[in-house]
C-alpha cells in the first residue's frame, strides 16, 4: 500500500488547484462537492492505508515514498519523501477524519458566503500543508508544511477581509508564528551542521552517539525547536495571537485553531523526542511552560464573555497539558490527549458555531441563554463535549487522557509535586469555566430569539463527533481499570516508554482527587452562575476583584506588554526614518556643490578690471610657486 501514500496529500492539493483556477465560475453545489469530497477522499485513503498498516505492519515500522529530489547542492540533498509511521498515522487520521467532518459542516455553515470557493480552496490547502507537515521525512519538507499551515491560517483568519480588524488579527497570527519559525530555521541550520543531514530518522539515530546527555549543543537545538513549537502552538510567550484568531469563521477555528495546526508544536517535539531526551533541562522548561500556560489560560477563560474566546483560551490551556506531558517524558499520553482534545474541541467549536449562526452572529454569552430546549441536538452535543473537556470521570474520554497526564505529573521520573498541583488546580478551573459557559449559553432566560435552526448537514457531524468524544477514550484505560493500553502500545513503535518513579503507587487516590476537583468545579460554577448570580455582582463591585478581573480578561496583560515593549518602538523607529537618513548625505553633497557654483559664478562679475585683477593674481601665484620650488 506504500505507493498509495502520495494520494493522501494529493487529494486536497487537487481540490485546492481546481477551486482556485475554476472556483469562481463553478456553481456552489459543485464547489461543495469538490471541497468536502476531496478531503473525505483523503480520509478514506488514510483509513485504507491505516488499516493495512495496522493489520500487516511493515517490518521497518514505516512506509516511505520518494516523489522527487527537491534540490542537490554539494552534500545537501533533501528529497520530497512521504514517511508514514505510527505517530504520523495517528496525526493524519485525526487531520483527515475531523477535517472531512468540518468540511461537511462548513458546506452548510458557509452556504450564504460570496467567497464560497475561496473558503474551500484555503481549507483544502490547509489540509494539504498539515498532511505534508506530518508526513515529511526531512526537516526541510516539515518546514515547508509548517509555513504552508501558517499561510493558510493567515488567509482563513482574514477571510472576511472587509473588516480591517480581521486583517490585523490574521497579520498578528502570521508574524508571531513567523518569529517561532525563524527560531526553528536556525535550529535546522544547527542540526544540519551537527549531523550533516536533515533526514529525521538519521538524526534520531545519530543523536545519542553524537551528544552526551545534557550537552550544550543538544540544549541549544532543543531550545530552538521548542521556540518553533511554542510559536505555532500558541504557548506562553506567543499565545496572544490565538484569541484574536477567533475572527475567522467557526469551522476554521475548529479545524485550525483547535484540532490540528495548534498541535503542530506537539508533533514536532514528539517527533524529535530523542533530542529533547538528551537535554533534561529543556524538558523541564517544556513542562514548566506547559504548566504555566494552562494555569494562565484557565484564568483568562474564566473572565471571557465571547463564546469563541473562552474556547480559544481553553484550547491554549489544554495544549498546555500536552506540553506538560511532553516535558514529563509521557510522550504517548501527550499524543493521546491530543487526539481526544481534537475530537471534543472540534465538537465544541462546531456547536458554538451552530449557536452563533442560530442567534444571527451573536458572540456575547451574556446575551444568550435558554437555548436548552430550542436547540436540543446542539445542546446535548455541547454538553458531551464539555463533559469531555471537564474530564468527567469514567464516561468522558477526556478523563482518561487528562487523568493520565495528572498521574504522570506526579509519578513520572521527572515529574514533581508542584507540577501536579498546578495541573490539579488547572483541572478545577477548567471545570469552573466550562460549566459557566454551558450555564450562560444554555440555561437561564432566553435573551435573543433563535433565527435559524441548524440544518441536517450541521447536526450530523456534531453527532458523529459526540459519539467519538465518548468512546474514543476507551482504547487507553488506566492500570487500575482493566489496563487496556492499545493506543500506547501502538505508539511505542516510535515513542519511548514513560519511565515512572520507583516509588510511584496509589494511582487510584490521584484519580479520586481529580474527580473531586472536577465535581467541585462544577458545583461552584453551578452556585455562582445559576443559583445566586447576585453573588457575582457583589464580587464585581469591590475594587481588587475588578482589577484582577480586567487583568485576567486581557490575557494577563501580555498583549499590552508586547505592544508597548516591541510594536510601538519599531513602528516609531520606522516612521521617523521614512525618507531614509542615508539620503541626506547625498543631498548634502549636492548643496555643497551648488554653493560652490554660486560663489564661483560671483567671480564672473563681467567687469574687465576684475578679470585683469584675476589675471595678475594668477600670475603672482604661478611665479610664487616657481620661485619657492
Amino acid at each position: 500500500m506504500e505507493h498509495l501514500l502520495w494520494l493522501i496529500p494529493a487529494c486536497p492539493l487537487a481540490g485546492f488547484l481546481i477551486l482556485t483556477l475554476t472556483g469562481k465560475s463553478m456553481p456552489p453545489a459543485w464547489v461543495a462537492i469538490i471541497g468536502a469530497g476531496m478531503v473525505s477522499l483523503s480520509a478514506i485513503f488514510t483509513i485504507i492505508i491505516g488499516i493495512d498498516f495496522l493489520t500487516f505492519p511493515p517490518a521497518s515500522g514505516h512506509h516511505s515514498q520518494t516523489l522527487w529530489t527537491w534540490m542537490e547542492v554539494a552534500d545537501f540533498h533533501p528529497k520530497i519523501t512521504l514517511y508514514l509511521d505510527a505517530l504520523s498515522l495517528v496525526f493524519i487520521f485525526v487531520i483527515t477524519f475531523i477535517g472531512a467532518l468540518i468540511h461537511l459542516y462548513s458546506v452548510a455553515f458557509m452556504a450564504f458566503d460570496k467567497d464560497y470557493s475561496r473558503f474551500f480552496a484555503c481549507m483544502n490547502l490547509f489540509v494539504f500543508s498539515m498532511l505534508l507537515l506530518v508526513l515529511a521525512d526531512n526537516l526541510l519538507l516539515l518546514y515547508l508544511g509548517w509555513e504552508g499551515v501558517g499561510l493558510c491560517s493567515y488567509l482563513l483568519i482574514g477571510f472576511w477581509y472587509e473588516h480591517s480588524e480581521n486583517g490585523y488579527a490574521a497579520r498578528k497570527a502570521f508574524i508571531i508564528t513567523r518569529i517561532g519559525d525563524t527560531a526553528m530555521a536556525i535550529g535546522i541550520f544547527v542540526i544540519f551542521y551537527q549531523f550533516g543531514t536533515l533526514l529525521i530518522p538519521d538524526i534520531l539515530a545519530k543523536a545519542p552517539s553524537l551528544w552526551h546527555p545534557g550537552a550544550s549543543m543538544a540544549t541549544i537545538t532543543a531550545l530552538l525547536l521548542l521556540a518553533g513549537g511554542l510559536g505555532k502552538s500558541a504557548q506562553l510567550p506567543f499565545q496572544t495571537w490565538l484569541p484574536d484568531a477567533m475572527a475567522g469563521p467557526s469551522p476554521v477555528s475548529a479545524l485550525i485553531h483547535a484540532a490540528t495546526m495548534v498541535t503542530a508544536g506537539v508533533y514536532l517535539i514528539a517527533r524529535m523526542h530523542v533530542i529533547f531526551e538528551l537535554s533534561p533541562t529543556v524538558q523541564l522548561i517544556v513542562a514548566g511552560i506547559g504548566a504555566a500556560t494552562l494555569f494562565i489560560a484557565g484564568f483568562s477563560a474564566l473572565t471571557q464573555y465571547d463564546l469563541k474566546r473562552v474556547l480559544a483560551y481553553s484550547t491554549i490551556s489544554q495544549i498546555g497539558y500536552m506540553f506538560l506531558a511532553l516535558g514529563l517524558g509521557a510522550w504517548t499520553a501527550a499524543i493521546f490527549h491530543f487526539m481526544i482534545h481534537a475530537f471534543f474541541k472540534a465538537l465544541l467549536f462546531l456547536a458554538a458555531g451552530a449557536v452563533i449562526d442560530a442567534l444571527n452572529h451573536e458572540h456575547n454569552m451574556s446575551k444568550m441563554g435558554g437555548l436548552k430546549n430550542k436547540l436540543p441536538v446542539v445542546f446535548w452535543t455541547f454538553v458531551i463535549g464539555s463533559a469531555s473537556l471537564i474530564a468527567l470521570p469514567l464516561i468522558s474520554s477526556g478523563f482518561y487522557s487528562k487523568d493520565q497526564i495528572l498521574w504522570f505529573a506526579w509519578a513520572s521520573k521527572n515529574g514533581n509535586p508542584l507540577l501536579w498541583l498546578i495541573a490539579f488546580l488547572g483541572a478545577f478551573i477548567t471545570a469552573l469555566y466550562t460549566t459557566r459557559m454551558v450555564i450562560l449559553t444554555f440555561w437561564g432566560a432566553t435573551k435573543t430569539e433563535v433565527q435559524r435552526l441548524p440544518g441536517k448537514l450541521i447536526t450530523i457531524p456534531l453527532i458523529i463527533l459526540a459519539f467519538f468524544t465518548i468512546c474514543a477514550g476507551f482504547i487507553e484505560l488506566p492500570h487500575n481499570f482493566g489496563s487496556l493500553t492499545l493506543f500506547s502500545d501502538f505508539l511505542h513503535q516510535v515513542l519511548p516508554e514513560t519511565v515512572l518513579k520507583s516509588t510511584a503507587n496509589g494511582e487510584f487516590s490521584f484519580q479520586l482527587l481529580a474527580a473531586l476537583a472536577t465535581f467541585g468545579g462544577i458545583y461552584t460554577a453551578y452556585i455562582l452562575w445559576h443559583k445566586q448570580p447576585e453573588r457575582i455582582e457583589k464580587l464585581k463591585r469591590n475594587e481588587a476583584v475588578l482589577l484582577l478581573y480586567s487583568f485576567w480578561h486581557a490575557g494577563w496583560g501580555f498583549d499590552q506588554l508586547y505592544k508597548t515593549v516591541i510594536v510601538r518602538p519599531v513602528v516609531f523607529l520606522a516612521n521617523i526614518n521614512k525618507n531614509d537618513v542615508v539620503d541626506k548625505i547625498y543631498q548634502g553633497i549636492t548643496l555643497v556643490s551648488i554653493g560652490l557654483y554660486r560663489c564661483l559664478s560671483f567671480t564672473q562679475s563681467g567687469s574687465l578690471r576684475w578679470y585683469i585683477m584675476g589675471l595678475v593674481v594668477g600670475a603672482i601665484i604661478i611665479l610664487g610657486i616657481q620661485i619657492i620650488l
Partner: protein
Amino acid sequence: MILIWLIGLLMGGGLLAFLVGQWNKTLPRWISLYTLIIGFIALISFWVEHYAAINIGSTDSWMIDFQQDWIPSFGISFHLAIDGLSLLLLMLTFFLGILAVLCSWKEITEHLGFYHFNLLWILAGISGVFMAMDLFLFYFFWEIMLIPMYFLIGIWGSKNREYAAYKFFIFTQVSGLLMFISILALYFIHAQNTGRYTFNYFELLGTVIAPQTAFWLMMGFMIAFAVKLPVVPFHSWLPDAHSEAPTAGSLILAGLLLKTGAYGILRFVLPLFPEIAKTYAPCAMLLGVIGIIYGAILAFSQTDLKRLIAYTSVSHMGFVILGIFAFNELAFQGVVMQLLTHAISTGALFIMAGMLKERLHTREIDEMGGLWFQMPKMGAIAVLFAMASLGLPGLGNFVAEFLILLGAFKSNMWLTVLATIGLIFSAIYSLRMIQKVFHGPIPASAPFSDFSWREVFIMAVLTISIIWLGLYPQPIINTARPMIKQMEQLFPTEFKNQP
C-alpha cells in the same frame, strides 16, 4: 557565434523600432517583441543543447568563446564568452525583456519608437555585460546600459522623473568611473609584470599585486558593484529610480540592473582579488546584514507602493552580499537562485504596482484598500508574490534564502542569525502591503477591471516560473555548478571544511 548575433539582434531591433516608430504607431511593439522572442528561443535551444555537456561535470566551465581584435594598439579585443552563470542571467534578461514589452503594451502611448529603441538597447547593454570577457569591453557595455535607462526614466517616468533620472545616472557613473581607474591600474600593473599590454580577463586573472594596491583596486571594483547591487550606504538612488520609472523600466531595473552588480562581484572581484576578498569578507557580510534589516525597516514605513517594493529589493540584495562572501558552494548556489527568483518575484510585484497605477492613477497605498472585491485574480496573485518575497517555502525565494543562510551559517554564525531575524521583518512589510492594498473596507469608487488576457498571460508565466523554481530548482543548480566549481580553486579552505 551566437553571442555576437544576440547583441546584434537586440541593437538592430532597437534601431529598426526607432526608425519604424517615426511613422507607424503600433509596429515598434511587435518588432521588439519578436526580436526578444527569437533571442529567447535561441538561448533556450542553446541551453538545452549544452545542458548534457554541463552534467558530465566537465571542468572547463566556459561553453562558448568568441574573440576578435578591436583596438590592437591597446590590446583591447571584442572578447565574449559565457559559462553557466552568464547563460542563466542572459536567459533571465530575454525572459524579463519579453515581459517588459508585454506589460508596457497599453501603458506607453507617445514616442513609441524611441521607447522600444531604449528598451532594446538597455537589454543589449545588459547582455553585453554578462558576456564581456575583456575588462574594457565590460566597462563599455556597463556604460551603454546606463544611457537608455536614463532616457527611459527621464522621458516616460512619472512626476519628478528628472531628479530620479539624474540621481540614477550620476550614482552609477561615478562608481563606474572609479572601477574604470581600477581596470586601468590593473592593466598597467599586469603590463609591468609581464610586459604584455592586454585587457583580456583570463590573462589579467593571475596578476600579482602588492596587497596595499590590491586593496584599493578591489575597492574601486567593489564600489561600482555595491552601488549597482544596492548595498546600504549607496542604495538611495534605487527607490527614486524605481518609483519614477515606467513599469517596464522598474521591471528591468529591479530584475536585471541589480543583477549586473552581483554578477560583477562574482566574475571580477572574487577571482581577481581572492586574498583581499577573504580578509574583508566579514565586514562585507555585515554590510549585507545591515542591508537586510535596514531595507526591511524602511520598506515597512513607506506609503508609496513602488518605493516599498524598491526597499524590499534592497533587503533581498542584502542576502546576495551575505551569500557571496560566505565562500562556499551552498551559499553560491543560493546567490545564483536568489538572483533569478528575486528578479521574478519583484518583477511581478512591480508589474502589479504598474497595473494598479494604470487603474487607480495613484501609488499611495493609504488611498487604496478593499480591492480584493473588485480584483480577486490580482489579489490572489499579489498574495502569492508577497508570500514569495517573504520567503514562503514552496516558492523560489525560499530555496535561495535558505541555501544562502545555510551556507553563511558555517562561515559566520552570529551574522546569519541576525539575517534570519530579517526574515521576520520581511513578513511584516509584505503583509502590511497586502493588508493596505487588498484588505480593508471596500471603496465605493468606480469598479476597476480585473486582469485582461494579456495581464493574465504575464502573471501566469511568472507564477509558473516562481513555483517551478521553488519545487524543482535542479536544472538551475546544475547549470551554475561548473562556475562554482571554479570558485572552489580560489577559496579551497572555505569550501573544504564542509560539515
